[in-house]
Each structure stands twice: as structure tokens, then as C-alpha cells.
């Protein structure tokens, strides 16, 4: 179809920072579609349409532009290119490949107006067809496989909305993303398809139905898996002042959590952190696949010094890519560090538009934007079937950091996000000051998921005859001890710990062990960085056992200082960073030693008499 080019051209009538006003296109454009400033190749998004002009937010800096310069209407909204070649890559907020930009520019800086396709046009992928001619195809069906890398198989799916009879499909072989792969007869019209699907970032990708979460997303962070667990398909907010450990938590999860695929968005944060992830993840080996972690990650980097409008897009760009892998039947996490920077970009743009500000200067539509983001999480049954005609189950877990000004959680981003998430990991500056990391405040944080995953956890156990209750009960006990310790805090301050009754001293002592042995976890220690479910249960049980037995001892007129003097305590404290996940039986030995030490304590006292 040949369109009159003239019809698609407008001219600039105002420039105000990244916001430009254009005349001549107002009659034909759709909101949120893209335009391009012809001379400099700058892309922008239409954000307001008036009767005589449109307002455009440019994704790059507007210096040197002049009035009356030509603007081309691109007739489509910002969309992601979905297909093989996303993994291990790093894109900016509008999916420009930063590695390719670096190669092209031969410079460490991003000049403006670079136009490179998101997915490589030259790379050939080994495509294996899984359907035959005359097969009836439904949206979401797996039509073939590309091994995107040795870790992840990339399922080529029939795009949403497409149904019909397969009339042609290529044989197994090497193809680029743009080569036609198969042809579908849709109501009498044959249509060609290649490996790429284009999908607008603000539109949710459809699925068949939402399911109830049953499985935890194991984070390997003890305080999280024990006290504030998340599920596959869940939502989490991680608020905290600067230096409280948001980024370290996000990175730890990206490294070790039990998802298949990670979409990591550096949204308005540091360039060095992106370099850190790229460098570390290329080196670190995923214990499950034996392959570099980088093979299961897609990075989106729109750092704080990059243009704000692309920062605003980066969150939705990321979640669209995440949904695409979810639709293949993978467990995907989307990690956004930090959603506050996204909201601030929204605020800056809103300010340029001179919109009426609501709370904190943020636009009134902030909550609805936030919910449209978090609501895309979930565990779902996808459209279509896999190659064995089974239903596909995929999940998308969303974990967003929040950077509240002055660390104050009553500000608009934190308080609005709370309305849309099920889990809240409140990071606390006091704990961070004490170098208690992860600085998750156990009194302020919460998770609504424990009852969903109790059954899953009840299957994770080690058969220690001495102590029998499951994860759910362990949780309750640990919570109880911690909250008692909190109640005693003021009292301790007033009279000194030594002057409290023995049972209360025991609570304080055990709470201290819980903090040291379980809650504090060093993300940079090879062993401590990730604690698997079994090791965690073992660690908790050994402490609860110590607690139970100590209580008995107190009843027999022993003192807390006797228990404090046990040699085994130091060993218990060092379990976290000396015993690897695979060697849990060693914790069993420590448990036996604990029981023996307790016995001999009684014996000695029994002999010499108290």
C-alpha cells in the first residue's frame, strides 16, 4: 500500500526540553503512537492531541532542533520486538541494543538518533518445526523451537489473535528472525509469519486464565523465604532509603531465585550497577544448568543520566518481554530497580505538560499507572498448547524497588504501591547502619502468601525425630520470639538485660541467635549468599530445638548463662557461611552435638549439684 508521504508529515511549533509541539498531524494521529524528527532521527511518543496541535515526548535530547522542522508520523505505538536474541542482552528503555550501539559508535557514549533494530537481523537461529502442514493452529501454540542458548529453549508461538490451518512450514534449519517460517490460512487468507512478534508495551499480552498460586518463588534469602515469602506469580515492593540494600536484594534474587528467566530493569539508577550485573552474571554459574547466569537474563538499562521519557517506558518494555517468555510456559521474574525513578519520570513529563499535580507533585493518574504495572503479574494458563498438546503454565513475578525520599514510607509511591502488592519488604536504615543485612525490618514487612504455600513447604523436611513441626509452625514460633524480644526492648534499656527474669533473658538470647544465624545474611559470601529450602529448615529447627531444650533447662533451675556458655553456639552461628546447601547432613551432626552437650551439661550439674 502506498501512502501519500505528505499526509504523514507535521512541523515543529514549540520546543520545551524533551517536549515538542507539532502541527499538521493532529487530524490523523492516535494517542501513544510514535513520531520521528526527520533531521536527527529522534523518536518521540504522542502524549496529547489537541484540535490544532499534538504534544510529543521525545526519547532523546532535543538540542539543535528548530521550529518548522519536519516530523514523520510512524503510525504505531512503542512496541517490543519479541523473538530469539533477547536473552543475555542489554537494551535501553525503548529496546535499542546497547552492545550494538557500542560496536557501531566505537565509543563509550550514546550519541543521539541511533537507529538499530532490537534483534539482530543477521544472526541465524536453528529452528526446529514442531507442527505439520494441515495442523490446526491456535493462538499461543508452540509451532517450533529455537535453542536461544544452552540454558533456554525459545518456543516460537503462534501470535495472539491468530488461528487457522498451517499451510506451509520450513524444515529444520538456520533462519534469521525476519525470514518467513510458516504460513497460516486465516479464514481463506494465507499469511506469512517469521520469528518476531511485535507487541505494544502498554497492552497486556492475553492468556487463557489466571490460576491460584501454590508454589513459592524461592529466593535463597532466609528472612524472605521464612518470614515474608513470595510465590511464583506474586507481587512485591521493596522500599528503602539509600544504602539500605534494595539493589543487593534485587541482584541476589536475579542470581539465585527459582525462576527460569529474569528481566532486570535498571530504571533511572546507576550505570556502574549495570556493569556489575553484566560482569558478574557472565562469570557466575547457575547451579541448575551449569551455565552462566547471563543466559537466563534480559537487561534493560535506562540509567539516571539517560533521557527520562525512555526511563518512563523502560518498565513497560520490560514487562512486555517478561509476558512473552511467560507465554512459553516459563517462570519469569521482572525486577525493577527502582520504580520511584519511573514515577519521577512520569512527574517530570507531567510537569512539562503543566498538568494539575496531585500529591507530591505526581500526576493524579499515578495510582492507575502503578496498578497497570503490578496487575500484569500472576500465574496463568497460557493460550495454546505446548508441543505435546499439554496446557502451558507460566508465571510472572513482579518485584519493584521503591526509593522513598528521606526513607519515609508515607510518600505517594510507597503508599500507592502498597495497594497493589501482596508482599512488602520494608528496608530499614537503622538496621543498615548496624550492618544488619538484608535490612528487612521484620516488624514492618508482610507477606500475604504463607497460607498458599504451606502444602508445598510441608514436603520439605528432614526427618529429625527431636523436632517435628513444619515450615508454617517454624515461622509462627520465630515470629513469636522476635515480637517478644521487641516488647522487651524498652525494659532492657531501662533495667539492663542482666536484671530481667531468666525466661525473658532466654527470649532475648534466642532472638539474638535468630538474628545472627538466620536473618543476617551476607550477599557477598560464597556460601551464605544463597540458602536452599532444606538447609534453611535445618537451621531454623536447630535453633528452635535449642530454644525448647533451654526452656526445659530453665525449669530445672539452670541459668541462661549456662546455655550461653555452650561451645556449640558458636558452631550454630557459623552454619550459614560454613556448610554448603548440599551438605545438610553436617547440620544433623551439629544437632546431635547440641543434644549431647545439653545432656552433659545436665550430667555435670547433676554431679556437682546446683
Amino acid at each position, binding site marked *: 500500500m502506498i501512502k501519500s508521504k505528505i499526509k504523514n508529515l507535521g512541523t515543529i*511549533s514549540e520546543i520545551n526540553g524533551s517536549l515538542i509541539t507539532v502541527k499538521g498531524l493532529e487530524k490523523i494521529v492516535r494517542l501513544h503512537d510514535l513520531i520521528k524528527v526527520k533531521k536527527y532521527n529522534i523518536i518521540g511518543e504522542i502524549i496529547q492531541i489537541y484540535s490544532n496541535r499534538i504534544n510529543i515526548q521525545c526519547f532523546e535530547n532535543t*538540542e539543535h532542533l528548530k521550529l518548522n522542522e519536519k516530523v514523520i508520523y510512524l503510525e504505531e505505538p512503542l512496541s517490543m520486538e519479541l523473538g530469539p536474541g533477547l536473552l543475555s542482552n542489554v537494551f535501553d528503555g525503548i529496546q535499542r541494543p546497547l552492545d550494538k550501539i557500542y560496536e557501531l559508535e566505537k565509543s*563509550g557514549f550514546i550519541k543521539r538518533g541511533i537507529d538499530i533494530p532490537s534483534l539482530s537481523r543477521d544472526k541465524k537461529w536453528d529452528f526446529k518445526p514442531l507442527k505439520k502442514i494441515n495442523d490446526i493452529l491456535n493462538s499461543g501454540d508452540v509451532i517450533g523451537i529455537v535453542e536461544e542458548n544452552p540454558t533456554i529453549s525459545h518456543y516460537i508461538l503462534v501470535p495472539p489473535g491468530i488461528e487457522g490451518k498451517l499451510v506451509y512450514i520450513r524444515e529444520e534449519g538456520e533462519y534469521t528472525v525476519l525470514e518467513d517460517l510458516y504460513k497460516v490460512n486465516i479464514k481463506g487468507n494465507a499469511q506469512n509469519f517469521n520469528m518476531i512478534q511485535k507487541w505494544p508495551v502498554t497492552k497486556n499480552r492475553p492468556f487463557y486464565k489466571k490460576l491460584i498460586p501454590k508454589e513459592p518463588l524461592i529466593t535463597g534469602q532466609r528472612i524472605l523465604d521464612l518470614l515474608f515469602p513470595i510465590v511464583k506469580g506474586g507481587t512485591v515492593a521493596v522500599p528503602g532509603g539509600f544504602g539500605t540494600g534494595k539493589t543487593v536484594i534485587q541482584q541476589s534474587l536475579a542470581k539465585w531465585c527459582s525462576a527460569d528467566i529474569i528481566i532486570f530493569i535498571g530504571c533511572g539508577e546507576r*550505570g*556502574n550497577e549495570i556493569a556489575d550485573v553484566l560482569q558478574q552474571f557472565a562469570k557466575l554459574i547457575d547451579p541448575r544448568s551449569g551455565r552462566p547466569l547471563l543466559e537466563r537474563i534480559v537487561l534493560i538499562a535506562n*540509567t539516571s*543520566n539517560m533521557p527520562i521519557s525512555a526511563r518512563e517506558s523502560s518498565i513497560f518494555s520490560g514487562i512486555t518481554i517478561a509476558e512473552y517468555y511467560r507465554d512459553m510456559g516459563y517462570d519469569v521474574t521482572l525486577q525493577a530497580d527502582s520504580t520511584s525513578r519511573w514515577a519521577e519520570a512520569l512527574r517530570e513529563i507531567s510537569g512539562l505538560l503543566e498538568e494539575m499535580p496531585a500529591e507530591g507533585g505526581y500526576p493524579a493518574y499515578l495510582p492507575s499507572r502503578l496498578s497497570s504495572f503490578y496487575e500484569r503479574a500472576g500465574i496463568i494458563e497460557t493460550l495454546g498448547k505446548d508441543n505435546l498438546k499439554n496446557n502451558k503454565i507460566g508465571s510472572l513475578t513482579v518485584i519493584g524497588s521503591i526509593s522513598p525520599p528521606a526513607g519515609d514510607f508515607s510518600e505517594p509511591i510507597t503508599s500507592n504501591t502498597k495497594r497493589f502488592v501482596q508482599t512488602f519488604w520494608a528496608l530499614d536504615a537503622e538496621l543498615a*547502619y548496624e550492618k544488619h543485612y538484608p535490612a528487612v525490618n521484620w516488624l514492618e514487612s508482610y507477606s500475604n502468601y504463607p497460607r498458599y504455600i504451606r502444602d508445598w513447604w510441608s514436603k520439605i523436611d528432614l526427618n529429625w525425630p527431636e523436632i517435628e513441626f513444619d515450615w508454617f509452625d517454624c515461622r509462627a514460633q520465630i515470629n513469636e520470639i522476635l515480637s517478644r524480644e521487641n516488647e522487651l526492648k524498652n525494659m532492657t534499656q531501662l533495667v539492663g538485660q542482666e536484671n530481667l527474669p531468666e525466661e525473658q533473658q532466654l527470649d532475648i538470647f534466642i532472638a539474638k541467635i535468630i538474628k545472627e544465624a538466620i536473618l543476617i545474611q551476607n550477599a557477598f559470601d560464597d556460601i551464605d549468599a544463597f540458602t536452599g529450602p532444606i538447609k534453611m529448615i535445618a537451621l531454623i529447627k536447630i535453633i528452635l530445638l535449642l530454644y525448647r531444650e533451654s526452656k526445659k533447662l530453665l525449669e530445672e533451675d539452670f541459668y541462661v548463662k549456662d546455655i550461653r556458655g555452650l561451645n556449640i553456639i558458636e558452631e550454630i552461628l557459623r552454619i550459614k557461611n560454613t556448610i554448603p546447601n548440599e551438605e545438610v547432613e553436617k547440620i544433623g551432626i551439629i544437632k546431635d552435638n547440641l543434644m549431647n552437650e545439653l545432656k552433659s551439661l545436665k550430667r555435670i550439674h547433676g554431679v556437682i549439684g546446683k
Partner: protein
Amino acid sequence: MTVIYNKINQIIGPLVFLENKHSVQYGEVVNIIMNNGESRNGKVVRLNEEVILIEIFEDTKGISATNSELFFTNDTFKLNISKDMMGGTFNSLGKPIDIETKKLLKVDIIPEVRRDINGIPINPFARIYPNNVIQTGISGIDGLFTLIRGQKLPIFSGQGISHNELAAQIVTQAKVFTDESFLIIFCGIGIIHDEAISYIDKFRMSGNVQNIISFINFADDPVMERLMIPHVALTTAEYFAFDKDMHVLVVLIDMTNYAEALRELSLAKEEIPSRKGYPGHIYSDFARIYERSGLIKGSKGSVTQIPILTMPNDDITHVIPDTTGYITDGQIVLSRDLQKKEIYPPFEILASLSRLMKDAIGEDNTREDHSDVSSQLIASYSYALDARDLVSIVGEESLNAEQRSLLKFADVFEKTFLNQSIEENRSISETLDIAWKVLSYLPKNKLNRIHKKYIEKFYQRG
């Protein structure tokens, strides 16, 4: 082509409004020649069919609506940069000045390059993760909050706290371990004349002045210049780092003055203010400065930043330190309490942090025990502060032996480890040796953050 105008509609603060009759570029630099022969520069910040809005870099006093001529230069602002700048002192626009008289020198820099001062963002993919130490000779920094090449590590201070001494000490003592070339760029933002003279004097006395470039924006210089000078300093830094492969340390003092200028301009433009009248985009403005640091693939140099700021009312949650802390790779906080105890430099240990040190210290870089020692010092000091609090409530008598040893430890730590003279330049090894002397006030079995093998090797060594 240069377009000439001679009618100004309005002048409000640093903003000049013109009727739009010609085709100008967004961001273009404008020269204004006043009828007394003086000239000013500005740039186009808003453009529509009726009006051109220009921000004037320099003083707008004397500009009148009818007697000024405006020349559009057809280009954005460019800074002249050359190797000859080393050892020199410059104003906010990169022109050589005489520090004692504040006058422009009659010499001109013959540029090797001309660069846009706003820079362009570094491609995150092109960054190299920083992992080499810069030694400052100051135990608190080198031992606990180690400065890394390519890092942006700010110092949060307060009025009357000794940050000027500290800044000068860092500038004169800082060095890299390799024999690569090292350059210091000192950027004074809104500083008073006396201070500026005293800084430059110290640099001259240091014997290292040839490796220092100073940019000075005086407290009574115009607002717009205050906003430009960090970018002028960093554009220069990027040139020496990424074109000339040098390690460049940029000290920016005082970022609070920059932020105040930003607020003034924002209010003049009638932007919607965010916290405390500062614009919502202060985060992006700061980021455009602080993110101009790091290492880039393909060049051997680095840009390291130490921005120094004074916290209004010593409040770390104030917009300026808060926003800074969210962008920088850690922060070093100075304490008024320690300053009162005559401890110099008065580092507020618990609030301070160097995010990049963990991978850059240790056996191959500083010393094997460095990482454990620093976390133990901080952890024990934190316990000691709790014990100090307790003393004030229940009295020293009700402390147990462990708590008493902590109190002793904290005193010695402050007096011998943190405290040092303005001239004292300690090697990292000396710093760690002092650390062990201090740690030896604690029983061995309380050093649980230190690997046993280092305890065997270093404990009681002194």
C-alpha cells in the same frame, strides 16, 4: 550565519524573553552585547512561534530591553580544552583567571578540542566495573570507606565541620598505586574568595600543582554559572580520562550551592516545586553530574568524583544529601559530635558507606585482611555505641566485661585510628596496622567477622 536582534521583551532574573522572528536552534548560545560594550552569554531554553526564552549564564545586571544587541552563534556552548590547562585556575566558563584579583587573565587556552559541556550519557554496556583503589592517606577513608577509581563518593558535611581541610588533604595526598598519570580537578562551586585563595595556596605549596586544574565559581558569581561549572569541570575530566588515558579525581565543593542555584532558577521559571521548593527534576540534574564518572571500555583512564556538600541543619534526610545518596556509590558522613571531641577527620562511621570497595580491596589490591578488618571495626564500633548509650542510662557499673572492653575499644578507635593530623599521610598498610592495635582491645573470640587465619596472623601484632 549569525542572526542579530535588538529587541528584548522581558527580563526576569536570569531569563530573557525575545520575540521570535528568526530560525534559531534549541540550546543555541546567544551573545548579548550591551551598550557599555560588556558582553554576556546565554542559551535558548524554550522556543515557540511567538517567543524565544534565553537563560543568561552570567550576570544580567545592566542588560536593558532596548540597548542590547543579541547575536545567535548557531551552535551550543562549547568548552575549549587543552593540556596547557594543567596547573591553572579557571572560571565557570573555562577562562583562565587570577585567583587573588578574580580577574580574567589575558592569555587564552589554545584548544586541542572543543566539547559540549552537557556531555552525552555513557553507554552502560561500555562501562567497566571499577575495582582499583585510590589511596587518600586518611585511615578512615582508606580503611573503612575505600575510594575506588571510577567511583562517585560524596562527603556529607555541615556548616563549621572540617570538610575544607579534608578536601584539601585529599587533593594533596591522593594517589594511585600504579605509575599511571593522575590528575586532580578541583571545582569550587559558589565558594567565598578567602576559601578559594586558601585552597589554591595549599595546592601551590603541595609541590604537585602541575597535576591540579582548578575551576572556581565565587559565591557572588551569577546563578547560571553555578549550574554550569560542574559540567565544565567534568567535561575537562572526561577529556583527560578518556582521550588522554589519565586517572582523574574531581573534587566538587559545595554541591549545596549548586542545588540552591537550581532552585532559584526553577522558581524563576515558575516550575512546580517539589520538596522544599527544589524542583522534582533535581534527581536527574544531580545524576547528569554524578554519572559522569567511571571507566569506559577502550580507554585506560578513569573519572572519580568526590562531591562535597553541606547538609542544611545537619539533616541527612534533606533533599540535597538524600538525592545525592540515592545516586552516588556510597557516602562519607561527617559528625559534629566527633568534631566537638576534636577528632579529625570526624567520620560518622555508621552512616558512611563505600559501595564499590568490596571487590576492590583484599589480597591482590590492598591487603588480605582489609575486608574483614573493616567490617569488624564497624560492627564493633556499632556495638560500642550501644554500650555508650547504656552507660548514660544505667551507669557504667552495670556493664559487663564485654561492654567495658567495647567502650575502651571505641575510645582508642576514635583517638588513634580515625584521628590524624592534617599533614599525616598514612599508607593503607599503616592504616591496617593501627586497626589491629585497636582491635586488640577486644577479646579474640569477639572478632567474629574476621577469618580465623587473619586473627592468628595479625592479632596483638602491635
